[in-house]
């Protein structure tokens, strides 16, 4: 299937505050949030982006929605480069691409009624007011809040977490988008409620034929949402492949550590020792070559000299590791 979203050699550096010495030396230190990321997302696909805090996954999501601009590289949506979008084309992109917020308790303005919160995107998109009621009703049906009169005049604090997350999803769907980026969509919800929201997101995606990106730190969760997963480490993609392959047979040493670290609710599960040491290095001064090398149990000389390219090892499976190529 043709790619709906295409990310090419994207680099994103954020400036950081400078020390006196750096000011004197005219140094401009940056955090390398993303350092050369390329991938494509086919229309109708659901892709997970997983990694630890600071790996660049949230920045990547924001770039795909044109909420921030890349330092270098380009992103295109439906064949058009996001960098060049202006006027009506930009407004149309804003309608088609929506963000589902992380924390439903923060995502809605506490002083707006639910109606106002859900109508806001319609107002911003310039949709005629006569259409609002129908569109809101349709979005609420999609998220299984059919008796919408019970909710529309309420304020966010009067709803439970599960109801709020449904409202947040309805708000993202009200403009009938094609592309959804969900950043940790269920991390704040209780377990018994979370499962229902995950099922709902899958159902909505299938029913509307959406293309979706799920950003999460939780590999165990994305397994229930996405067939494909990108694993990120310090601003680079280290592995990109079928989620089940990555979970069952992770190829990159970092993916292996991530899989081994995820606790499982089964007390009889054998406990493997963590095949990794130390902490994620400072993103201002990442290691040369492979960024994982200083924590990698298999690192050798070449890893310090050249960054491993992300290369296909099988159909739809790419790994950035010198061991895979050698």
């Amino acid at each position, binding site marked *: 299937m043709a790619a709906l979203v295409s990310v090419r050699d994207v680099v994103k550096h954020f400036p950081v505050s400078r020390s006196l010495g750096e000011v004197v030396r005219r140094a401009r230190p940056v955090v390398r949030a993303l350092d050369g990321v390329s991938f494509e997302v086919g229309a109708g696909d659901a892709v997970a982006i997983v990694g630890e805090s600071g790996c660049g996954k949230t920045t990547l999501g924001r770039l795909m929605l044109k909420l921030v601009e890349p330092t270098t590289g380009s992103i295109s949506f439906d064949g058009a480069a996001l960098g060049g979008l202006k006027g009506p084309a930009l407004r149309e992109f804003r309608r088609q691409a929506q963000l589902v917020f992380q924390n439903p308790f923060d995502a809605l303005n506490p002083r707006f009624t639910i109606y106002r919160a859900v109508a806001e995107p319609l107002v911003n998109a310039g949709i005629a007011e006569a259409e609002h009621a129908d569109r809101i009703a349709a979005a609420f049906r999609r998220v299984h809040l059919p008796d919408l009169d019970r909710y529309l005049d309420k304020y966010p604090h009067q709803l439970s977490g599960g109801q709020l997350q449904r409202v947040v999803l309805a708000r993202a769907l009200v403009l009938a988008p094609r592309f959804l980026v969900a950043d940790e969509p269920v991390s704040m919800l209780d377990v018994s409620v979370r*499962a229902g929201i995950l099922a709902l997101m899958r159902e909505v995606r299938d029913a509307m034929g959406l293309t979706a990106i799920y950003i999460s730190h939780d*590999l165990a969760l994305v397994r229930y949402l996405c067939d494909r997963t990108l694993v990120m480490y310090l601003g680079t993609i280290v592995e990109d492949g079928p989620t089940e392959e990555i979970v069952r047979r992770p190829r990159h040493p970092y993916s292996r550590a991530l899989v081994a670290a995820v*606790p499982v609710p089964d007390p009889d599960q054998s406990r493997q020792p963590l095949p990794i040491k130390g902490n994620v290095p400072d993103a201002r001064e990442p290691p040369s070559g492979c960024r994982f090398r200083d924590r990698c149990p298999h690192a050798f000389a070449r890893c310090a000299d050249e960054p491993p390219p992300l290369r296909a090892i099988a159909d739809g499976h790419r790994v950035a590791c010198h061991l895979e190529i050698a």
Partner: protein
Amino acid sequence: MILEVDGLQIHYGTAGGTVRAVDGASFAVPEGRIVGLVGESGCGKTTAVRAIMGVLAENGRRAGGRVVFKGKPIDETNTRPLLWRDIAYVPQSAMSSLDPVYTVGAQIVEVLTKRGRHGKTAARARAAELFDLVGLSENRLRDYPHQFSGGMRQRAAIAMALALEPSLLLADEPVTALDVIVQRQILDTLRALQQRLKLSMVLVTHDISVVAYLCDEVVVMYAGQVIESGPVREVLGRPRHPYTMGLRNAFPDLMSDALELVPIAGSPPDLADPPPGCRFTPRCPFALAACSTRPAAIGSDRAGAGNAHVSACLRDGEADHLRTFALDPVTWQRSSAYATS
């Protein structure tokens, strides 16, 4: 048992009436074991731990029950001298327990000199020893909390809790805010310390996979009450209470073949006005008419040095049978015949 909690009742006075945050919770912590106190938000697990330490919020009060530490009943009038020396606390967010304007070392030294009887020099040596114990380099003692990563701050908070050699460690979601790899490193550190220092530990968490990894026993709370408890292998492996069964189905498992998570319909009851009978009745696919009127008592059997597997369910005798039904997602789609909303 190093700690026994018996029929604990904690009430919060609110504008909406009295909230029974903990309503008759009983559990015991065997010496040298790690007990997981698990449940969803609002189940009373954090309140229970705060009550053990005698540090409830201003509008909270103990309305009944007993807390017995090393054979001696304790309440807010006599827990203060025990804190740090006998009972220590590790918070969820170490950032909020560490003072941003003092170095981490200075804060540990303060605990050692003010709460303990260490002199300044001895305290500094002990602080270095504690940092080493939790896997931090002693030259980081001079750093301020903001110079630490989340995992390092959590290690520092553990070091501080261990300063005066307590015998019981209460940890409230100690790894929840951390990335999985850091989380695993901290859990491994906690386990190593517990064995080396012969600590007893209560680990409050919403995460049953953390319980499965670290704990020896587990106490499952729902709506202010303990609904099931016992050895982790039994409670998580062969749950007897329908809520625990539902929790297992709803919890993501990286290694499971089932690619479907099954939610528990509905949400927990309002604790200002809890339903009579078993509080899980409105969400329970196995509820009988009697469940909505008569609460099931939970036993407190002992099994050797630890606690036996017990559950507060009227249908406990059929637990093995119900468990096979609980594995079928269809069971949980059917709303309870006794749903109130």
